[in-house]
């Protein structure tokens, strides 16, 4: 299993993702944004950070990086791609996922551990049963998921909402449980095929147990099992 972790100028969770994946026993290599091919990698991670300083708009410049052309093409052929935080923003800007991440309600950066409820979805990335509640940290300024009503209805109807912000007991209170104001309390969504997954929370920060929790591993192990089974 070989993950490729894309480094844009300004990515700052790239090392963290590599450390988490290596802790789980996978091979993980950096992919410089100016490279032009992702061939040879079993899965791609677009890590968190402030690519290009988030100038203009989060992810708006990164999506023109040479590597992204290959990411978009191979994702279309089923290559697993996960975008975490800034990576989720890049996936939306690149058109691999619908909607956009806008400024948090309250207009402040939010860093805290939040409960997420795993939804019944087509996502290939999660090793967790629907209904499971896991605490995963968020750290973002523009993490409020926005899409038009039609898109939201389609996401819901086709099982593409992967994780939702919830209370510790798993209940979702619309307009309240999302710390950032996300519509439908969405924390993460996937594409129709389920191979492209974007989420604002940071599972890599709760993977190797540095602050006690390892719940984040379940966001990476399923795809490895799947790739391993098909190899």
């Amino acid at each position: 299993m070989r993950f490729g972790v894309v480094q844009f100028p300004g990515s700052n969770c790239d090392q963290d993702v590599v450390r988490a994946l290596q802790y789980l026993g996978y091979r993980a290599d950096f992919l410089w944004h100016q490279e032009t091919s992702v061939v040879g990698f079993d899965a791609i991670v677009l890590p968190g950070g402030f690519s290009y300083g988030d100038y203009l708009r989060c992810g708006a410049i990164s999506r023109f990086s040479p590597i992204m052309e290959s990411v978009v093409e191979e994702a279309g052929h089923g290559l697993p791609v996960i975008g975490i935080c800034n990576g989720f923003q890049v996936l939306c800007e690149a058109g691999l996922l619908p909607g956009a991440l806008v400024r948090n309600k309250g207009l402040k950066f939010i860093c805290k551990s939040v409960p997420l409820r795993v939804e019944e979805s087509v996502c290939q990335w999660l090793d967790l049963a629907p209904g499971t509640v896991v605490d995963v940290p968020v750290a973002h300024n523009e993490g409020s998921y926005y899409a038009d009503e039609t898109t939201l209805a389609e996401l819901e109807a086709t099982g593409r909402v992967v994780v939702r912000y919830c209370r510790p007991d798993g209940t979702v209170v619309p307009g309240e449980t999302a710390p950032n104001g996300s519509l439908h309390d969405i924390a993460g969504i996937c594409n129709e095929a389920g191979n492209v997954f974007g989420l604002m929370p940071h599972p890599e920060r709760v993977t190797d147990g540095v602050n006690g929790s390892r719940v984040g591993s379940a966001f990476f192990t399923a795809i490895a099992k799947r790739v391993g089974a098909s190899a």
Partner: protein
Amino acid sequence: MPDDKASIPAMKVTNAADLANENDPAPVGMPELLDPEKAPKIAQDLGLTLDEYEMVCTCQGRVPSLTELTIYSLMWSEHCGYKHSKNELKKFPTEGACVMQGPGENAGVIGLGDGWALSFKAESHNHPSAIEPYQGAATGVGGIVRDIFAMGARPVASLNSLRFGSLAKPRQRYLLDGAVAGIGGYGNCLGVPTVGGEIYFDDCYEGNCLIDVMCLGLMRVEDLQTGAGAGVGNHLVLFGSTTGRDGIGGASTLASQEFDEAAENKRPAVQVGDPFEEKLLVEVCLELLHRGLFVALGDLGAAGISSAASEMASSGGVGLDIEVDRVPQREPEMTPAEIMASESQERMLAVVTPENLAEVQATCARWGVLCTVIGEVTDTRRFVIRQHGEIVADIPAAKLADDAPRYSPAYERPAYLDELQGFDPASLEHPSAREGLERAFLELMAEPNIASKRWIYEQYDYQVQDGTAVLPGEADAAVLRVGMPGRGPVSSIGVAVSTDCNSRYCHVDPSEGAKIALIEGARNVACTGATPTAITNCLNFGNPDKPEVFYVFREAIEGLAEACREMGTPVTGGNVSLYNESFGQAIWPTPMVGMVGTMPDYRVHATMGFEHEGDIIVLLGETADELGASQYLATCHGVTGGRPPKVDFELEHGVEAATIRLIREGYAKSAHDCSEGGLAVALAECCIAGGHGCMVTLDDELSPVASLFSETQSRVILTVSPDDADVVADILDEAGIAYDGIGRVRGHNVTVLDESGTVYLDVPVERAADLYDHSIERLLAGEHAGTSGADGVIENDPADDGAAL
């Protein structure tokens, strides 16, 4: 200098005789000189005194050019030259087995073991932040981060120590909001986690807030980089942003003068930060450094190229020739003086050999970082600046960096100290029954100096880089794991870090207050299981030309130096910020201590929360009647006065050693020190953090307010399992320190009784938590923090306190 005389004339120049001698390097050329009639006035406008102007002429052996005078004015400013403080700073102990680099370089460095080293330093950015809080605070972070990677370390964490006036005032809320957003905006983007800090509010900071930022960086021992220029013919290379007119005179006219009505006009002297550029600069510099492509590396902070380059020349004993035309400029027609003085952010300066230049340029191109050769290393020991081929400045390099004037200002004990210390807290009327005690307790829980800082730290990414083992709010100090993916072996070593200073203590007694800042920092890291190892500091004081201010400064330094010696924690670097006054009124003395501790295994640490029902609560140390300068007096009586708590270094050592041992051997399930608000607040904080109540009986024979709110030092609250009670008692007996089993983790209330069963406090944890958790955000929203009278019910059975120890 005699210690017992306060009659030394002010502004005495201590090294005038050494200014010019025959060993000075010979001039390289002659620039266009200033008109001797007009030059003294220009010098004054640049912030120099007339005496200092005469010294410049002596150093140069002639009237200076405009560029020369500008460079001298910056390098000899208080901010860069430490004119008033250098003699005092010598009192600090700076050596220890762990110290790899003491004061004098960009930052201090200590060895950690397993081939790892830690670079750390704190710096203030007070005046810029008082004018423009977002950019002032943001560029404060940027500046200290550059100091750390200039040493060869990857910046892995930062902390901040903030002081503002009362949140009841709208401008103070604006300043806090802006400063927090600026620190977060810069650090979050840069990817350096903000893992801790402290904040206090008092009216004395209303016109002069304090923004002290500390940064820590990790490196392999062999990565230690010097700033000393060397190798005649080597290139001087400028990295990063272009150079503009921003921040000109920041060091001299902003950081080194008091504030008055004209302060708003100084807004253009505040720089603007670009954290994205800094992120690229960190990566490119560390890559070049790890590949061994630098001879020397320095950061551009206060006084820009002037400071970085002249320090490189002077520490390396070489000369430098700089052509200002080659410096990439943001604006047209900048003068040589402007280019040399600019404090444009996100720039670094390096010495590179001609052979390595192409590789350096290629690496910079890959990262998209500008890199430009702006000059060469020479053997002249002169700092020579050229424009259009003409010499515009020619200065003996050592004069700038090493020969700044040194003053031994007059000092005189302020009369207010006797008045403050003479105050007797017993002269006030104190509550003695439950209702009044609970009201005081709840007021303290809502007091912004005590309340949770969650509103602040949740705006900081405190986990990026995935090295934060203990998060903000969980313990008395942050804990970081040591290690970097892809560089060096995995290690279990942990670093604990805390910033501390109770300036109320320093106000009533500068020496004792400074000692307490140090021992509290030490106790904080000890409460996570770390051994206190070394410190940095930010010494924030008023105008040193006032004898009363300088007295306080000296006292605080001597107190801090004594405490550092007693506790075995050397000072590896730091920063002095003087002239913290507005409209003639000095801030309280605020010698902030940034304490670093080390532990063999970051996974073996303690946090403060009471997590196991039935655990025994043990108090190490002993409460005394010490309400002087307490938060209780300030919050509940509006009084600052009395003597601060006593410092007993031997007891402090004993308590810390016992705490560390009990944590490392796994007996202490939680640990928390008692500070502002005393035992009552400390117990409540443990309850809130752990989600359990406590049932505590106090038999200290003190008045109820002293029992609950006295701020006696050298006290730690631990919890231990009843199964371990005997072995813990043996360990503590062996340690020879006072201790007492005071109660149990139990129920959902904070319950405190006296020996006879009289209830002092019985408040639901939830109620205390509501005030504690939301006070700051409520105050920011312009609401009252909101405390009402006591209405709790006794939930625990007072007869069964069950403390076996």
